[in-house]
């Protein structure tokens, strides 16, 4: 068992500490940093509830080791809202569209949509929906989430090509 000193940027501030090699980034965020936005669902990369941004990309924090976060820029749900409590536009849309029931899966969905929202060119709705297939909602509250997608996605008339697929099938 090896121990590692790590230092990384978490929601705009620098954090540091010691970690066991086997600690996941998810556990490090929740237990060592008290950052409970990323949720521990399946803990083996299936459910998507632990999704965070690492250097701007949506990744499953249960599938990264804490030592691998060293030197990275990590954003969790806590890093989205303004200091005065004003919600991030995507959080606000979730609220307006009733895009959650119990809320357990919500942080993951939100973080993936934040990553997609920032990507260039803006993804079409089909591409966003495909990306959300990496998340499970056991309340089956997908319709509200898909309404958020419709608001975020590149407008249909501008969307020429969709996600690649079994074309001709």
């Amino acid at each position, binding site marked *: 068992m090896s121990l*590692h000193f790590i230092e990384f940027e978490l929601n705009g501030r620098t954090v540091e500490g010691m970690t066991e090699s*086997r600690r996941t980034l998810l556990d490090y965020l929740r237990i060592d940093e008290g950052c409970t936005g990323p949720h521990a669902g399946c803990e083996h990369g299936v459910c998507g509830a632990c999704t965070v941004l690492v250097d701007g*990309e949506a990744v*499953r924090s249960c*599938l990264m080791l804490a030592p691998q976060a060293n030197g990275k820029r990590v954003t969790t749900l806590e890093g989205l809202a303004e200091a005065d409590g004003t919600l991030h536009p995507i959080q606000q849309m979730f609220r307006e569209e009733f895009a959650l029931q119990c809320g357990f899966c919500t942080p993951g969905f939100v973080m993936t949509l934040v990553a997609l929202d920032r990507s260039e060119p803006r993804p079409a709705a089909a591409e966003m929906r495909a990306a959300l297939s990496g998340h499970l909602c056991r309340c089956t509250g997908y319709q509200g989430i898909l309404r958020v997608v419709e608001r975020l996605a590149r407008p249909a008339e501008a969307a020429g090509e969709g*996600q690649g697929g079994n074309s001709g099938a």
Partner: protein
Amino acid sequence: MKAAPFDYVEAGSADEAVQILAEAGSDATVLAGGQTLMPLLALRLANPSVLVDINPAEDMATIARRNGATVVGARTRQAHAKRDATVAERVPLMAEALNYVGHYQTRARGTIGGSVALGEPAAEMPALAVALNAAIELRSRRGTRMVPAREFYVGPYVTIRDDDELLVAIHYPDWPDGSVGIFHEVARRAGDFALVGLIAIIASSGDRIDRAGVAWFGMGPTPIAALAAEQALIGALKSEVDVAALAQTALAEVEPNDDLHASARYRRTVAARIFERRLRPVFEARA
């Protein structure tokens, strides 16, 4: 869930990783994107004593052109390869197949080399390497060897890579401009492994077929090249190909299993159907 204890070592380059592997021997496991290995660790299905993290090895995260091939470094992220201009131009089937590899979130970490090295029989990247007749570059302190992808896979998750060898890169040979590539996967949900998968590439001059690569995935213990079907195609005239017969030739080379997800009979039926449906237009196309 928590992995059993292990030592974690970062490798800053391919050579550094090779050095660590030589010293640690079979107790060491290479950590690439971790999108399969991390779950295996969490479930304690893998219990290495040393984890060699190649994520810092930027020398293995490059996509380069060399000797008429596109050389994809093993640590290249799937998401990166999917939007890479060289891949789009020279190995467009890879960009298409990557849409089916895991999910958006796993592709941000998952690597091309990790998927190829793992050898999941229903996965896309091993089958792509087999279909395109790629070569796999293995490096150890003993030297470097190039292994044809068609000889690399031995069984489910078993390859001919030795414990001290690092999969450094995959060399995808150029196929002639105008080659037609086909990727088709049948799965229940996005991101699932294939129940049935087919990758084919066909190069022709006029009506005559010059080169063909055909591979199945999800149809046996490894990705499987349909060698007899390829041989039947090479030199044949597109206008004279009997697609239904060719599908049966291609299927004679696989023995799919019954499992929880699909029966062997289902797999054969669907495989024949997608083969015919996707390849017929290629042969009917006017050159």
